[in-house]
């Protein structure tokens, strides 16, 4: 983890490793702790934590790995999850509740309901998803403070 503090805000960066099921969620846990230390409103923290965790799990279970970048500014929290592929073929389909390509192993861990992306979108104030099939996916979420 890399923690830089600028006068404009706080930037946090986390490496997310593919299929690392025992550590999945550590980045989100850390981010939640930082938000709490900053004294941010607990309902905002909760929404941010839920969406961040869903995004982190998606990188672990669906991608080749990637990173999460958090920017905390006076008026907003910006979370970006960027991975190294394989990308999403049909974003509209992926955004639908219940659509999932999760493996049996992932389902046994309690994921793969196809609820993650819709939940992320609902939890934040602004939601952006970009994906290039064969390249990678970037999800950006903004939470207003």
């Amino acid at each position, binding site marked *: 983890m890399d923690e830089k503090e600028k006068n404009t805000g706080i930037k946090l960066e986390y490496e997310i490793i593919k299929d690392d099921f025992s550590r*999945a969620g550590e980045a989100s846990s850390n981010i939640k702790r930082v938000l709490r230390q900053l004294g941010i409103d607990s309902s905002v923290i909760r929404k941010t934590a*839920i969406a961040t965790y869903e995004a982190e*799990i998606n990188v672990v279970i669906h991608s080749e790995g990637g990173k999460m970048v958090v920017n905390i500014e006076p008026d907003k929290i910006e979370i970006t999850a960027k991975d190294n592929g394989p990308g999403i073929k049909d974003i509209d389909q992926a955004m639908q509740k219940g659509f999932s390509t999760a493996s049996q192993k992932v389902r046994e*861990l*309690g*994921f793969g*309901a196809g*609820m993650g992306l819709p*939940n992320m979108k*609902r939890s934040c104030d602004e939601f952006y998803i970009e994906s290039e099939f064969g390249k990678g996916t970037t999800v950006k979420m903004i939470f207003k403070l």
Partner: protein
Amino acid sequence: MVIGDIRELLDAECLWDHDHLNTKVDGAFGCDLMSDCLAFVDERIVLLTGLTNPQVIRTAEMLDINAIVFVRGKIPPQEVIDMAKDMGIALLATKHTLYTSCGILYSNGLKGISIGGME
């Protein structure tokens, strides 16, 4: 209902020595799907589940859930118990099934949640 009542009603064992027996919960949610839990839970509830992996504790952490009941006699590995202990999340284990556990709590007045923004 407080967590101590839940322990008694379900004849459950505490998996670590927490001080949550007087902590109140407003309802309960039973499932083995963490992403449904993340999507639907909107209140201070106790989570009942048969899953015992670290992601159950992470899910509870993100949702500010402070008590989990493991059903069907499942006991999580020590590292999962330690994780919950670090976060101050109470862990109970009961031999009842998920269905029976929920039935007992419900009939004693602990309500289910109303499905939040995801309907």
